[in-house]
């Protein structure tokens, strides 16, 4: 039964990596700036999930902290970029 679980873990990791490749392709070919920001958003969410899969496959809790940090910084960067597109500057006087 553990072989099935290992297979599922590898399958999920492969799916996240393929989704990261798709997001990278959209990041390069995206026609507008908002497409690229959306691709970056998807990319960091998939990177966070890949780190969580690493934490599941090797029983350590270090990867959880890294995933939390990636979620925090990705949210801040996406908000800053979207605000820059929307208003022309990030921190308004």
């Amino acid at each position: 039964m553990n072989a099935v679980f290992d297979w599922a873990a590898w399958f999920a990791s492969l799916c996240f990596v393929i989704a990261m490749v798709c997001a990278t392709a959209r990041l390069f070919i995206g026609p507008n700036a908002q497409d690229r920001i959306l691709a970056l958003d998807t990319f960091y969410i998939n990177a966070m999930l890949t780190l969580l899969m690493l934490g599941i496959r090797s029983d350590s809790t270090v990867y959880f902290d890294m995933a939390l940090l990636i979620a925090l910084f990705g949210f801040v960067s996406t908000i800053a970029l979207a605000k820059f597109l929307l208003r022309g500057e990030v921190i308004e006087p």
Partner: protein
Amino acid sequence: MSDADLPLWVTIPGTFLLVTGGLLTLVAGIGLLRLPQFFMRMHPPTMGTTLGAGCVLIASMLTSSAMLGRPVIHELLITLFVVVTAPVTSMLLMRAGVYRSGARARLAPNDDAAGDRADEQSGTDRS
């Protein structure tokens, strides 16, 4: 693999949740790559962000609880954070897309470079 003694109540839901989350995230990535317009492309990553990440986080919670022998709810922190921040990100990106497409359609007769510069400056003044 190091987890050689996972009990059955972790293995069956864990496998199901991992396969479901992986497939949802894969569909989200393919949809992000293949849909033709920006406002269509907004939809698939939200599915992967909420439902796929939720599945994987619940599976991670089950696995670490079984491995450590006590209930581990650290992953609820990431779940809460992702659930709170995903709508904020989506709404800001959608508003940026609406603003940029509307401004670009209004500035249609000008050439592109001057239109871009006027677009950004008017975005600064508009606040």
